């Protein structure tokens, strides 16, 4: 049983129908527990005060924003190499989710930055990279909307995703070169003691897991939507009376 069997829309939908209830449920539990624990059950940071509670939204959103793009890149590669429609449609389905997560990351970051750094926005490498990522999402989604033929749209957006990823990576290093930042280092690392203490760490990890499951559930459902739209299109194209 190879993984490619799920490239068939029917098999994909069957599997997706089985997985989705668990994904939605676990996502709801994870996000609720992570956010409620974080919001009500953690102390204030001695330096940042209550603003530290924003971390339970900010970090998971940022995590998804980046990984959604990576998932789209992989799905695009699969489409270009193996021509599996489900893969292209999954990339299409993931893009708006990634976009919203990027916006959440930017918004919560700005709200957090105001009391901490004294400014809503600084041209810090991390913030700037996220802004660029936001632009890439916009362009990718706009290209999907603009091309009429769905297979051509899948082709072109995949090429854009590939080339865009290279340029996004280059931008990341360019931005690091261009400005030293205010942003703190990674919030999560293997050596957790170094970054944030256990009190904050557990709810944060749960929130991240919840967001990841939410992303999975959303992408599965949205891919199902795209498959329905393609199937409807294919069926109605064949019903039209021939000239």
């Amino acid at each position, binding site marked *: 049983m190879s993984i490619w069997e799920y490239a068939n829309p029917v098999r994909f939908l069957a599997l997706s129908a089985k997985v989705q209830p668990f994904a939605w449920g676990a996502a709801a539990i994870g996000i609720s527990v992570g*956010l409620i624990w974080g*919001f*009500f059950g953690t102390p*204030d940071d001695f330096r940042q*005060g*209550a*603003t530290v*509670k*924003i971390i339970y*939204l*900010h970090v998971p*959103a940022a995590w998804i924003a980046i990984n959604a793009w990576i998932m789209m890149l992989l799905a695009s590669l699969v489409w270009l190499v193996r021509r599996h429609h489900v893969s292209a449609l999954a990339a299409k389905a993931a893009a*708006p*989710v990634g976009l*919203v997560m990027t*916006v*959440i990351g930017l*918004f*919560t970051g700005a*709200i*957090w930055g*105001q*009391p901490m750094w004294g400014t809503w926005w600084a041209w810090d490498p991390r913030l700037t990279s996220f802004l660029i990522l936001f632009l890439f999402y916009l362009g990718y989604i706009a290209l999907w909307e603009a091309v009429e033929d769905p297979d051509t749209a899948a082709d072109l957006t995949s090429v854009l995703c590939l080339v865009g990823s290279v340029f996004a990576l280059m931008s990341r290093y360019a931005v690091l070169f261009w400005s030293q930042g205010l942003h703190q280092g990674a919030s999560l690392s293997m050596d957790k003691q170094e970054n944030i203490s256990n009190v904050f760490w557990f709810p944060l990890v749960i929130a991240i897991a919840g967001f990841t499951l*939410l992303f999975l559930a*959303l992408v599965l*459902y*949205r891919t*199902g*939507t*795209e498959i*329905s*739209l393609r*199937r*409807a299109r294919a*069926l*109605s194209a*064949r*019903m039209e009376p021939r000239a």
Partner: protein
Amino acid sequence: MIPDLGKYATEVLSAYGVSLLLLAGLLARTLRRGKSARAALKQIEAETKRHGKV
């Protein structure tokens, strides 16, 4: 019930408000689009059945 957020109450609450609102918006849009697409497909499938098998 709401913990004492000190002087940062506005920031924290608005961050949660904006984020949850955005998530809810995404969820609502996803579900609405999904429902209408699935309904449209059902209708077309029914029509094709009447016209004969594809």
